[in-house]
């Protein structure tokens, strides 16, 4: 593919009532999203009509927030389980990719490989798995009494898990052919009892950003999600990850890197700014601080003066990279806990752009052409309005600039992403 025709990849990241923590309180947000399947069918069709590569669903096997006084002020305690949700969407759409998150810590590889292969068959080759190791102690408490396992142990298990799953998708029983798979963590005797995937194998997505997380991505992933605020951060991540591929006998183009972006887009800059302010006004302080502290893996952030600076933090056993990103931003912009919390509540540390379609397109284009992204995982502030806004305002602008497809060329998610079909 020539540089001129290189196309951006776009994901529609669906989450509850929207990515902004206070989204559900917005007058135009669909507040019953978590119990309304028709709403999700509509969102998937909107994304498909706009030719997005995929819809993506996050997941946690437990509440996001342990303190019910906080969680009851957010819409994130209830929602659809994503594999069932995407299986339903599979037969209500025809072209768009369907990527669900699932944990390597609380599943077994045989069952997970089989379930995602089934999603892939239901959708005619449009399925994908976002591998996560699950960093939350709240999840851990739903699967035993031993608590969250250390970061390194989770990734050790994840590495073996991914190996078994990708082997099964390629028709092998676990690792070595014929003899089944036995490793430290797993034993699998049989091959899967389902036919081979229509796209060779479901697409494997990974979002680990720590050193071991990046290594796992370089070894196994087809797509990488990431959170990066500045161009420099995004570029450094992009170069680092692509640079790790050679060690695994892979080429730079074998992985598509898609940072998250949280746009607030409107016809004019002023309108976009007003829209953003309107959302920010809806954040209760205690909710903002609690969200921030959960990502920083510190339980008692609320004890510190809200208008003072972030305290020194111990190293995280949760999401190490996100903790680092937040600390870096608080120092760089000299932000108080309150300011940081409000900023963070909007997009959880992801890149935010507030502006017109042309301004948003400019920014995306700069990162795309500057070698910091192969595409973007779009995180609308609230649903359905902000997905509609991106689809009707930004996508046509990207298409006019020749940066994004006007129609699907292939049938499978691998086709859309320009990924090789695995042997």
């Amino acid at each position: 593919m020539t540089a001129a025709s290189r196309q951006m990849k776009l994901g529609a990241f669906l989450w509850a009532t929207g990515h902004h923590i206070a989204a559900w309180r917005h007058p135009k947000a669909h507040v019953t999203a978590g119990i309304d399947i028709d709403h999700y069918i509509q969102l998937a069709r909107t994304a498909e009509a706009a030719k997005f590569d995929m819809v993506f669903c996050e997941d946690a096997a437990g509440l996001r927030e342990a303190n019910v006084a906080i969680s009851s002020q957010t819409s994130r305690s209830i929602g659809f389980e994503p594999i069932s949700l995407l299986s339903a969407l599979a037969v209500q759409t025809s072209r768009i990719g369907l990527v669900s998150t699932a944990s390597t810590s609380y599943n077994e590889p045989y069952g997970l490989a089989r379930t995602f292969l089934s999603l892939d068959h239901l959708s005619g080759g449009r399925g994908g798995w976002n591998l996560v190791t699950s960093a939350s102690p709240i999840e851990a408490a739903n699967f035993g009494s031993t608590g969250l396992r250390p970061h390194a142990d989770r990734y050790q298990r994840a590495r073996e898990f991914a190996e078994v799953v990708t082997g099964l998708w390629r028709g092998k029983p676990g690792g070595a052919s014929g003899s089944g798979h036995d490793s430290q963590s797993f034993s699998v005797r049989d091959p899967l009892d389902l036919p081979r995937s229509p796209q060779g194998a479901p697409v494997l997505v990974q979002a680990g950003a720590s050193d071991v997380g990046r290594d796992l991505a370089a070894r196994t992933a087809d797509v990488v999600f990431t959170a990066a605020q500045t161009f420099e951060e995004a570029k450094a991540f992009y170069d680092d990850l692509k640079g790790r591929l050679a060690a695994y006998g892979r080429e730079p183009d074998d992985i598509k890197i898609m940072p998250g972006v949280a746009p607030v887009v409107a016809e004019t800059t002023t309108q976009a700014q007003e829209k953003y302010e309107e959302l920010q006004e809806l954040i209760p302080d205690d909710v903002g601080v609690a969200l921030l502290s959960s990502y920083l893996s510190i339980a008692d952030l609320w004890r510190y003066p809200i208008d003072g600076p972030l305290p020194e933090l111990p190293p995280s056993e949760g999401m190490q990279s996100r903790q680092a990103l937040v600390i870096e931003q608080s120092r760089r912009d000299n932000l108080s806990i309150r300011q940081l919390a409000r900023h963070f509540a909007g997009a959880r540390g992801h890149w935010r752009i507030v502006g017109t379609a042309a301004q948003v397109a400019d920014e995306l284009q700069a990162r795309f052409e500057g070698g910091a992204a192969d595409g973007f995982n779009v995180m609308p502030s609230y649903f359905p309005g902000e997905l509609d806004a991106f689809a009707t305002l930004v996508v046509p602008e990207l298409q006019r600039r020749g940066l994004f497809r006007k129609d699907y060329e292939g049938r499978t998610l691998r086709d859309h992403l320009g990924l090789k079909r695995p042997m």
Partner: protein
Amino acid sequence: MDNGATMHLAVSPLPGIAEPSPAAEPDFSLLARFVQRAEAAGVDLVIFADSAPASGSDVATMPFEATTLVAALATVTSRIGLVAAASTVAHQPYNLARRFASLDIISHGRAGWNATMAQAPREAANFSRPEGFSGDDFRRRSEEYVGIVQGLWQGWDKDALKFDKIGGRFHDPEKMHLLDHKGEFFSVRGPLNVARSPQDRPVLVLSGLSASDMDIAARTADVVLLDDEPIESAKTRHDDLKLRVAACGRDPDAVKVLMNVSPVIDDRPAVTADRLEDLFRSKSCDGFNMQMPTKLSALDSFVDLVLPALRRRGLFRESYRGTNLRSHLGLAGGGDL
């Protein structure tokens, strides 16, 4: 139109592709037509097996995993109950409870879980438990498992969600409940992060029951599937189970006994109808689980030949009375019964 009849009918498409052809992609549309046909005929529910490889065979028995299949089918049907088998060895209870809670919302209250009390011989070896479980351990583990799943399904009260944008209350904090289960095999804090079921909770269908599992069934099941038996022994078995249900303090009618039958209908529909009538009128069961190949022709012979006979005899209702699976089955909690 309602003739007052109370027989319950399930259809189980048998694992095994009707006309296996190596080139054929798994076909969702065939399964969709099959279930839509059963729905048009007013069948209470369809039950999908979920196959781990049977010993000595590596062919696809059902081309989809059952819970994903049911999710998809839920969007192309509107009344019929959809039950998927899912193994207690393959899933963690928290994950399984979530999957079915979600299916129940996707289907607007038409989902059920078929749990089997029988250990599938090869399955454990694919789930990092090459040694499997002893019979006794498996029974205790299954009972604990079912209790966790049903407990998680009740973690949110019916009126827990407030959706109050102005007041900033998404849900009432008092109406969400931890499970805090600590047992012999599992430890699960809860609650589920899926809202309460539209039919109160998904329907629990137990199968593969041995004599020693009957008390577990009596305590927990909404539906039990039992194998075909001659009238006398079927009646003894049915009466025994209902006594146990009553002994647990439940209404004997709260557990529906469906008998598995695999009739050869084509030439003798009246004989099939006679047999079902005899079993039902003698109170040997509350209805039947019709096991048949996943072929429209097999379903058609049942729907076109046997069902009209059952309806003429006042045994099977003319049409659905409610909108969710509990209401079809006459189970409490159905809401719109």
